[in-house]
Each structure stands twice: as C-alpha cells, then as structure tokens.
C-alpha cells in the first residue's frame, strides 16, 4: 500500500519515465512530511555545527532533531507548536528568523530606521545645498584646475 502511494506521488511530481520497476524511493517515508520538514528545517539552526541549518547539517544531533520534528509533523502539530517545542529546549538560538521581542525590535526595525534616516539626511542635504549654492561656477574652475594638475604631471 505504502509503495503504491509513493509511486502515485512520484507520478504527480515528476514526469513519468515508464521505468517503474526500479524507480528510486524518496528518503522519507512520507513525501508530504518531508516537504514540511524541509520548509521548517531551513529556518532552524543546528546547535552543534558552526553555522548550518538543520536541513543542511549531517551532525548526529541534527539527525535526531529532524527525526523528532518528523514525528511531530506526523502527529499533526502546527509549525508554531513545533517551533515552541524546540525553543523551550534550546532557546531562541535555534531560530534563524529571530522572533519579534523587545530585544529584537531594533534588529527588525533597524534597516528601515536607517533608510528613514538616510532618506531624511538626503532630502535635507539636497535642500540646504540648493539654498547655500545658487549655481556656482566653482566646480568648473576646480575641474580646470584638476585638468591642469593632471597635464602638468603627465608631461
């Protein structure tokens, strides 16, 4: 029964080749579980390795955790519940997407604050420039000086 289901699934996702007898089996028993595991695991950090996701790591602990997550998926737990399970044991460190907390507010808002500050400074500078600099010929003069310097050095 299981084999039939696997084959049916493979027909659904990939182009059927006609060679049914020795088609390779997907590693996970249940492809839907594997797909969910994959989407979850790429956002989770493996603790023992230097800096790898749970999906990429081949460390034994990562394998155990994947097994654990697989079982939770099979038990129909939501993503939120699975993440809570891991965070309760290992802390926020396991999450590659830091959760919204007071301490991470600056992290999430930072880039947009920077953009806001950058944009404001840009507009203010441009305005002030226009006021203090009503079309000078200074730059032309400077440019000519540069040319002079260059040609002097070159000849």
């Amino acid at each position, binding site marked *: 029964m299981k084999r039939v289901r696997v084959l049916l699934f493979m027909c659904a996702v990939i182009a059927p080749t006609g060679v049914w007898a020795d088609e390779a089996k997907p590693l996970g028993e249940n492809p839907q579980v594997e797909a969910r595991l994959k989407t979850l695991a790429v*956002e989770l950090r493996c603790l023992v390795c*230097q800096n790898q996701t749970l999906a990429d790591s081949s460390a034994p602990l990562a394998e155990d955790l994947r097994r654990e997550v697989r079982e939770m998926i099979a038990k129909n737990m939501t993503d939120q519940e699975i993440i809570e399970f891991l965070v309760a044991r290992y802390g*926020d*460190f396991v999450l590659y997407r830091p959760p919204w907390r007071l301490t*991470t507010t600056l992290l999430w808002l930072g880039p947009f604050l920077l953009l806001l500050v950058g944009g404001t400074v840009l507009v203010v500078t441009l305005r002030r420039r*226009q006021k203090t600099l009503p079309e000078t010929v200074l730059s032309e003069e400077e440019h000519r000086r540069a040319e002079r310097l260059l040609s002097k050095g*070159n000849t």
Partner: protein
Amino acid sequence: MIPEIGHFALILALCVATIQGTLPLLGAASGNASLMAVAKPAARGQFLLVLIAFCCLGAAFAVNDFSVLYVAANANSKLPLHYRLAAIWGAHEGSLLLWTFILCLWMVAVTLFSRHLPEAMRARILGVMGLVSFGFLLFMLTVSNPFLRLIPAAPDGRDLNPLLQDPGMVIHPPMLYMGYVGFSVAFAFAIAALLGGNLDAAWARWSRPWTTVAWCFLTVGIAMGSGWAYYELGWGGWWFWDPVENASFMPWLAGTALIHSLAVTDKRGGFKVWTVLLAILAFSLSLLGTFLVRSGVLTSVHAFATDPKRGLFILAFLAVVIGGSLLLYAWRAPRVGLGGGFDPVSRESMLLANNVLLVVAMGSVLLGTLYPLFLDALGLGKISVGPPYFDTVFVPLMTPAIFLMGLGPIAQWKKADLPALAVRLRWAFGVSFGTAVLLPFVLGKWTPLLSLGLLLALWVVTTAVVNVRERVTHLTGDSLMTKLAAVPRAYWGMQLAHCGIAVLIVGVTMVKGFEVEQDVRMNIGDTTTIGGYTFKFDSIQDLMGPNYTAARGTFHVTKNGGDVTTLYPEKRFYMVQNQTMTEAAIDSGLVRDLYVSLGEPLQGGAWSVRLYHKPFIDWIWGGCLIMAIGGVLAISDRRYRLGWRREQAAAA
C-alpha cells in the same frame, strides 16, 4: 635555515615599514623633499622583503619541512604540491602573510603608476599604506608568526583542512584579498587628501581606477567563494549569509557606493565629503571583516582557529586605524567645499540616493551580523540571525536601488526633466513590466518574487538598450560602427556592469523560483527523474586519492532517451584529518545545472543521494564575472591609457 630567513625578512620588513610610515609623512608635512623621496624605495624594499618571506614559507611547504609549526599543522607529505602551496594561505598565520604580501603588491603598483601625482600626495599615500602594513607585520611577528619552529619536528603534518583542498580555494583567497586590500589604496588616497587638504576633483580622478580594480577583484573573489561553497559544501546552497560571507559583502557594498560617488566627484566635483567617508568605510569594513574572521567573536562555517590575544590585537589595530581616520575626517571634512550645484532631480541626486540605499543595505548586513553579539554582550540572551532575516530585509532595500540603476545613467547631470525621462523610458518600462508579469506563467509558475526579480532584471537591460541607442543617435559619424567606436569604453564598462547585475538577478530569481531538489534512496541500477532528466545510478567504486580514500558513484544522465552526461560524485574520507567530505558532481549549463551528491551508505548497498536541478544558477556567477569585466573595460578607457602612455614616455 630557510624559515629563519623568512622570519628575518619579516623583521626587516617591519623596520622598513616603520620608516615608510613615518619619514614620508613628516616630509610631506614639512615640505622636505628628501624625506618624501624615501617613500618609493621603502615601499619597493618592503615588497622585496615580504616576497622573500612569502617564498620562504612556500619553500617550507614545498619541501615538507615539518619542523615549522605552521607547515606541520597545515600540510602532509601526501598532500599534492599545488595544495601544499595553497596551504600557505590555508590558515590564520599564512593568510596574514598573504594579506601583507598583497598590500605590498599594491604599494609597488602605486609607486609604478603614480608619476603624475604631486610628490607630497604620493609620499602621503605610501606613508599611510606603510602604517597599515606596519600593523599587520607587527601582528604577525608578535602573535601570528608563520615561521615558528616545532622542536622536535613532527614526523608528518596534520594535513590541510579537506574543505580547502579544492582548486577554487587555491585562487579564491588571493582574489578576495586583492579586493579587500585594494581598498587600502583608495583609503590611503583619501587620508592623504585629508592630510594635505587637497580634496578636489583631481583626487577623485586619481583614485577612481584604483578603486575600480579593487572592486573587480573583490567581485570575482566573492563570486568564487560562493561557487566554492556551492560545490564543496555539498548541499547545493550558494549564499548563506554567514558572518564570513557578510564580512566580504559589506566592503563590496561600500565599494560599489564609492565607485559611484567617485564618479560624481570626478565629473562634477560634488559629494566630496561623502566620497571620502566611503573610501574610509570601504577599507574599514575590510579590516572589520578580517577581525570578525580571525577573532572568533562570531561562529561561522568558515571558522579559523581562534586565540583571544589575536582578537585583542586586531581590535586595537582596528581602533587605531579606523578611529584615527574618522577623527581626521571629523577634523578636516568641515573645511571641504560643496562642489557643483545640482537639482533635486538630476543624475547627481539619483546617484546620491543610490548611495544611500547601498549604505543602508550595508548597514543592515552589519546590524544583522553583529546583533547577536550586541545582545550577548548586554546579557540579553543568544539569538541567531540567518538567511530568513537577511532575505526579508534585503529585497525591499535593493528594489529601489535597482530601479534607480536604470534611471540614473539616462538622467542628465545637474538637472533632469522627470516627465521627459518618463517619456524616454516608457517603452523600457512597458516591455519589462509586461514580460515580467507574463513570463512566469509561460514558465509554469507565478509568484510575486519571481515577477519582481524578472522585472528588475529586464528594467536594467531595457533601460541600458534605450540609453545606448540614444547615445549613439546623438553622435555624428558615418556608419554605426564608427559611432559605436566613438563611445568611450568607460561608458560601455558601466552598461556592462549594470547588465551583469541583471544577469545575476535572473540567476537568483530562477534558482529560487524553479529549483527542484530530491533526496532519494538509490540502489545500483535505480533511476530517478528530476526536471526532465533521468539519473541512473550505474555503479559505485572504491578509489584511492593521494591523501584520501573515496567511494565514487557513476550516474548516467539521460533526457528523453538521449545521453546527456555521466556524473561522478564522490564521498571522500581524508585519513589524516579524519574527516568525511562530499564532492558533488555537477554538469553545468547555460540554462541549468545538474547536481548530484552522495549522502550516506544505507542498508542493503543503497545510498542516500541528493539531486538538484538548478535552472540558471550559473548566471549568478556569470553576472559577477560580467560586472568585473565591465569594471576592467572602464579602467581601460582612453583617458587612463593616454595617461599611462604619457608616463611611459616620461620615464623613457
């Protein structure tokens, strides 16, 4: 004996660097020509000494001198010669020597191509570079000496980290360092100009080619690092937002901003204060990157052995160099003039806006990279900031930047007419928008990100086409060829580099949108099909490498019954390092990569196998290469070649 010669050469180089870092600067300050004249021979002498040291370390590796601690730790008698030589920069001490060597290389380049510079300017530039080199030589001689002896000598070495035993790793670090360290030239130009008080358009014109060359190297270096991760780490990713990758990406973003800002300073005399800050920033970020990699304050896949003393030294060095330059900046910058005026809608303001976006992007990468450290230092807990964060933040920041990329080159200097711009670009926008919305449907899947990526890429290319067309029609000439030839190479370089970005975006968009992955269990004779390609697992053999044993699989790939290729992924076991490595087998193509990597042997002679079909992935690195070629084209422009020929004539 040879290691001692190398060690001694480093000590001498430190002495020379001391002289180079002081006398010429004093001479420039007091107008003493004989003191200034010290700079050039000192720089060349230092180069020779560091070259000797470099060769000595190379010789120690070549002859397997395991009485040298660094050689014993990073090589093995069974390691092939080319990897033994690459092992020079395989770990901390040696890569610092490479850093210093490349810095000296850049110094010599400055002495060769700076005849047109005023004496004081050149003396200051070389002086500043001498000070930087002083810091690195001191670092090496105090806490990271590659020539330390191991007594008694080890019978054999502990071998090079297998991850680094790869052709990509042989060239990736030198490329990357050429870029990192190359920004030291732009930095030295900026500091020299601040010291001398002559921050003008000429300064910008001089430092432009140097910055572009460094940027090209950095671009290629980062691309190679990414390509290496793709096939060597064995799980098919090409960018992980790892701290070490970010450390190389931040100077790239700052350097890209610098290139554009320098263009304005050169052409229009504007943004001087901003440009000089960017020059300081680009090099500071290179130094910061060095610190992050060496000190172990952040965990990374690329972790080097760490030592708190080393971290402290680099931090102190960082504080002195960057702190000192920023102090000088704060002191001198207020006196710098504003330069040419321009309208809020003009090429200048668009370039400035693009600069702001690039710097904000850089700041965000910095924030994300250091944030875990900030929280930890404040005792607020440990978090991880990874790809989901960077992806979320980066796309909205880059989208307007890339939109401006199409707009900027077509807008006039000083004052641009917005309605007229809209008219000129209406076709470009219409075509790219229409295609971007419809093309994903043709490809079989529509997501907003897919459309956005295609839109941005097409926008860059179509605006470039409009721009070139307008430019050529405005030229006078008989034939199209003469008209095209009349367009300066710098212009072609710019357009090409922009198209490189478009190619890169296509690569990223297509891979993220359409890649297919399969983890399967395969017995000999099994087949599996992915992306229309059928992989047949033909056989697996044992193999002996020079310093490893391997299991090599043979996968025959067919499409619609026709042969495509045969792939040989390997699972290697490096005996000395006691490490297992996955060597993926990849069939690269213009529109797709086929990727096979062997997982673990399973029960019953089967293997777990990971297969990918990755559409357009090579466009990612191709785009980077095109960008770098654009840069090279820009510096081969007539005005630089003329200058160089005049110098040659003057020298003869």
